[in-house]
């Protein structure tokens, strides 16, 4: 702790938070955690709560692993990470059931599936295990938001075109339906989430040319 101090929000530390939003986004660039992005983006509200839950687990996971990084035996580090993540997820689930029962009902099985979210294991293994607590916290927040915004954007389009609603409120007016407009039921099915994510990736890469791989 007595090493030379680095500013809490130095340029390097800020980058930890901002990079995952765009240049190294866990979903659109690293293509991790796609499964949950397909499953729970039918409605915006679910996407929000899921992002918050993943972020909470990611933050605490990163903090714990980073704090213990000098104690964890390297031979069983993956198992240790898995136990930490699983314990956190169960804890989040129990707390949701006790204090936010309505939210818990909405997310149902998906909370349990956070355990298998590759982003979390990825960040623990690639970042928290080799970095101090503070950068790990920033990294977790950045990746959590990077995951969350994609989810919310995908959910926005899926709910709007799939059910004509946002946050459960009717957005597309009744007169459109009377004129022959129909909700696109395809949007509700998982494949359209994949296509929506692909469109986001397309937009992102055409704006950020560095991301285009050469081959």
């Amino acid at each position, binding site marked *: 702790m007595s090493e030379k101090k680095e500013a809490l929000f130095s340029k390097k530390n800020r980058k930890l938070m901002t990079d995952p939003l765009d240049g190294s986004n866990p979903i659109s660039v690293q293509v991790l955690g796609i499964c949950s992005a397909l499953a729970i983006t*039918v*409605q915006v509200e*679910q996407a929000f709560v899921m992002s918050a839950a993943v972020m909470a687990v990611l933050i605490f996971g990163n903090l714990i692993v980073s704090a213990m990084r000098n*104690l*964890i*035996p*390297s*031979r*069983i580090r993956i*198992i*240790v990470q898995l*136990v*930490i993540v699983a*314990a956190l997820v*169960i*804890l989040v689930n*129990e*707390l949701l*059931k*006790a*204090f936010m*029962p309505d939210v818990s*009902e909405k997310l*149902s*099985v998906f909370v349990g599936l956070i355990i298998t979210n590759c982003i979390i294991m990825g960040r623990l293994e690639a970042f928290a295990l080799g970095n101090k607590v503070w950068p790990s916290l920033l990294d977790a927040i950045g990746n959590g938001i990077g995951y969350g915004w994609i989810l919310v954007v995908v959910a926005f389009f899926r*709910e709007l075109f*799939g*059910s004509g609603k946002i946050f459960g409120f009717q957005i597309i007016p009744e007169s459109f339906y009377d004129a022959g407009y129909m909700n696109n*039921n395809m949007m*509700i099915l998982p494949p359209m989430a994949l296509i929506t994510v692909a469109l986001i990736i397309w937009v992102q890469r055409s704006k950020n040319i560095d991301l285009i791989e050469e081959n």
Partner: protein
Amino acid sequence: MAINKNSNGYTFAFAIIMVVVVGTLLAVASQGLKSRQDKNTSDKKMINILGAINVEASRDNAQEMFNKYVVESKIISGEDLSAPAFDVDIKKEFRDKSLTILDRNYPLYICEKEGNRYYVIPVVGTGLWGPIWGFVAIDSDYKTIYGATFDHKGETPGLGAEIKQSSYSDQYAGEVVADYSGAFIPIIVVKDGSGKGMNSKVDGITGGTITSKGVEEMTTRTLGVYVNYFNSLNN
């Protein structure tokens, strides 16, 4: 460093301590939160029962409203008719393959609202991904449905999950489950849009056929039992 972190001893010790700590933590959390969770579950059940007779309750006043409107809870058929009806877990009994339809308990909640009596029947069945359940309120004539609520564990949002919406469950209100002689009439879920009106048919959900059919199956299976019971009261 005195300890070799790559030794077997250290690895074992670490694993053992970790498991004990995590296990204790989770056990404490589970035990500590259990009473709150149980209360949430029973509040939700009360809200759903009241929802079937169109009484809106919130988690804050569920118990109070339940005591106000539900005048009697009883088991009409099952092992022990004197057992507390509210505690019967029909979902668990439905899952239990060793129980036949006749062995299961059938709770009935008798409610009184604005001088009228309503009979609230719990139903449980299977959707596409998991269990679905609901409560159907029968009017004091023992055959007209007054209201219904349905819920599910993990049906597809926007498709099967729509059974939870009032746009679906409101179709049940006014349907008749017994003819003049008391014979049971099931409520059929149809696809062709002919469910409008009081004709023992309701419109299914587009893209949610299996869930809709699950609702049909559970109401048919369960309501029949209660119609027989109501007939025995009439005679």
